[in-house]
């Protein structure tokens, strides 16, 4: 079982990666087990909780139900890719400042989904943010602080998002 591995190439956090994995492995399994990127969490295995959310070519996807075959050749961003030499991504800083983190298990997926929302629409309204986050469960915060953090970034509290951070 799983002994027959195939070669896959993908770009993860800006770095080209070659992985050898059984084609039935999910992107989540490859990220966690082969690339040691454990910031991407595993919660439900059926796309409902959102803790496994990563960005695939800039769009938020649930990596627990995406096979490595489907991700091969694409650009993947995980939570480990957001902090750069410039420092934390403003969404990361805003989540800290607004107490949008409690147990933290949903946080990586939540921040990446928030990034996808703002990258697509830097002026997203509260309703649009809520719609965008409806596939990410949080059991601790009640979401208020999460929405406040995203709105703070949208509103320029951490500099102009479009000029400094938007990736299209």
């Amino acid at each position: 079982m799983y002994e027959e591995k195939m070669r896959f190439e993908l770009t993860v956090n800006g770095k080209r990666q070659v992985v050898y994995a059984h084609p039935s492995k999910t992107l989540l399994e490859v990220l966690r087990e082969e690339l040691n990127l454990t910031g991407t969490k595993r919660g439900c295995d059926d796309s409902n909780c959102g803790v496994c959310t990563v960005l695939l070519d800039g769009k938020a996807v649930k990596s627990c139900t995406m096979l490595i075959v489907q991700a091969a050749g694409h650009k993947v961003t995980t939570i480990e890719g957001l902090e750069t030499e410039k420092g934390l991504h403003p969404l990361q800083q805003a989540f800290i400042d607004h107490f949008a983190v409690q147990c933290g298990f949903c946080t990586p997926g939540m921040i990446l989904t928030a990034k996808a929302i703002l990258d697509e629409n830097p002026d997203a309204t509260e309703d649009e943010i809520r719609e965008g986050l409806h596939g990410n469960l949080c059991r601790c915060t009640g979401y208020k602080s999460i929405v406040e953090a995203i709105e703070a970034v949208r509103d320029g509290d951490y500099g102009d998002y479009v000029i400094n951070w938007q990736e299209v």
Partner: protein
Amino acid sequence: METLIGKGEKRIDAYDKVTGKGLYASDFDNQFPNMAHIKAKRSPYAHAKILKIDTAEAQALEGVLYILTGQEPGIDWDQYPKAAVLATDRTLWAGQAVALVAAETEELAEKAVELIHVEYEVLPHVLDYYEAIKPEPAAVIDPDYETRDQGFQDRPADRATNRVSPNIVGAFYMNSGDVEEAMAKADVTVEGEFWVGKKTASPLECANAICRYDSDGGITMWSNGAGVHGVIKQGICRILGMKEAYVRVIQPYMGGSFGSRLNPYIEILTALMCLKTKRTVRFTFTRKEVFCSAPSNWPCITKIKLGAKKDGTVIANDYYLCEEIGAALNNTFFSGRLSSSGAAPCYRWAEKGRTSNMRMDTYAVSTNTVPAAEYRGLGCPEAEFGIECLMNRLADELHMSPVEIRLKNIIDNGERNCYGELITSIGLKKCLQAVADEIGVEEEPVQDMGVWKKGRGCAVGGKQNTPLGRSEAEVWYNSDGTIQLFISCDENGMGATTAMTQIVADQFHVPITAVRTTKGDTAITPYDNYSASSRTTYNLGNAVLAACNECIAKLKEEIARHFGLHPSKVEIEGTTAYLKGTYVQEVNIPSLFVPVGMFTQGNWGLQQGTPVKGHGIYCPAPIHQWDKNGLSDRVWNWFQYSAAAVEVAVNEETGEIKVLRVASSADTGNPINPKLVEGQIVGGVHMAIGFSTMEEHLYNENGEIANCNFSDYRLPGILQMPKNEDVHAFINPDALPDGPFGAKGMAESITIPVGPAIAEAVYKAVGVRVTGYPMTAERILALIKEKKAKEAAK
């Protein structure tokens, strides 16, 4: 420096969590590439006789290391946590393990589980209270109840004697005043029977544990379980007979618990398989297993009668409660006492100054469902739902507002509750007023949403703090002036480690970033029982304060000795000591630590590399044995309170409920960190909206949970929460005299009043009285149809 107490200091763990750098137990897998994997063969039947377990084929599979069944010799399953018990001759719930496999890979373990063949003879089962409580039920969960030895966490005094059903496994009676006489004097009485569904706490990280087999035969465990010392290590030592020096338990970041990880089911089994295989092993529950094989909450059925005078004074409460605790063999600590304590904290149940008229008749009953255990509030949301519903009904009957009737009956500081305990901190009236004003509970909403009818409601809740166990803390003042804190509380996400660090920073007058905290490693950090019953701020906070005091006193003495001063003339602020009464007014403390050298060394004094240490212990005083009426002046420790008010819209055509606005207020005592408290309030409200309107276990014909995944068991998401401007959190503290800085816990009380407030708002919106939750759309619609049919018949 200004005090840090009461300040919204940033969380010390937030950076780790927003960057993905913080490791959770499940992230340690990669560090053990050669570890073995555990998988369980589980019963698909709620109740069945095991005729045969054939493990031969699985055993023959290459890479299978060990197969454990309930028949394994030398195991006393009575000592195990209920959810960890492997079936021996009978399966007691669907999802109970019949065998565990350890194999070289996860895939091999799964394959081996498939190759284990079990022959069952299916038996009739009972899945809920109403079936289980019958004098001759279809199934008896524990026929040996009367003669069985005490097991895990059992208490001999709780053994039920008056058993109307053979499934009754515990009982608690309490009688204060004269309920019958008071009821006869009442101008008005209201009564009702209330139920709640069975639910799973569903923290997002599934239960998991890794157990390393150390070279000397000891074990080291990483798990997301709670209570590294008091629950997991003590459990492993007691149940598996390990020596304390040979068990080390480490708790990395935890992906939530809400009480559900206080039960060491996965930890004990993982340690057992580690010892059997002498290998590092990993056991990770699937989401299905978290539903079917890890403890649920315990639902409560309540039958309550309240008697009141015309002016709204409630003078009697006749209270029956039964906890439905699942397939818990033997007597357990779920005997009715914990849940029914929820009937005590808020109200007098008498005229002011008189003895309470309160009668509690409480039981626990077993069913063929997953064994129950802790879930945020410990049965109190379930136990208080009916009381709050009846208080609202009483207000309607007496043409009073739901606020007014409560203000009349809420107990005041300095009074004694129905057990006879002195109340020393209660800010509930202020909490209620704040939320009622915010939502406008006493005003009618404008009906402007078509088929969506609006209504408003409020309720209150109180929860006891169970005074169990010590907390210890250690504080180090290092020779370079850096400060360290060592504690073993759980960090389920509530922010306790931040609050504790804040206390240390406050005492040494340094920024919180100047204190480094190490947590949850039994080989390094001192004893703590667990973080349960909202106790961490109180219990451990007092211990941390004591540790700071000891460390500072020692440091002052050393500095004072250096200058020939009395220690009282020294003040410490971070790395600076301020002196009075000598020629030096200010000194850099690290400069007083002498280097290690043959000319400078000694057995006393400040020396580089050697921290000045303070140790603190705090344990609540023991409780006072109750009398034959169940009364005692010390049963619980203190009470946390909250109030909630909501405006909901109910769709008349579909029965769907939308919470439009919500306000929640907590009496936290003086909060150490109000931002963390606000997070608990809003999060607690959200969790309660979920279990009040959506969440419950549903069963298939085998008695197996049919909705054991997040597609079918719907948890609340962001869209179930009102928009931000309509979510209000207030803190209305009444300082607790024995709390650190007057603080007490609060995280459980928040969830209690949300359900009954929604129930009242639904009544105001569409005129139907719900008697239980979850208030699903289909249930509300059925009530609306029933009401319409009755109206048509008239």
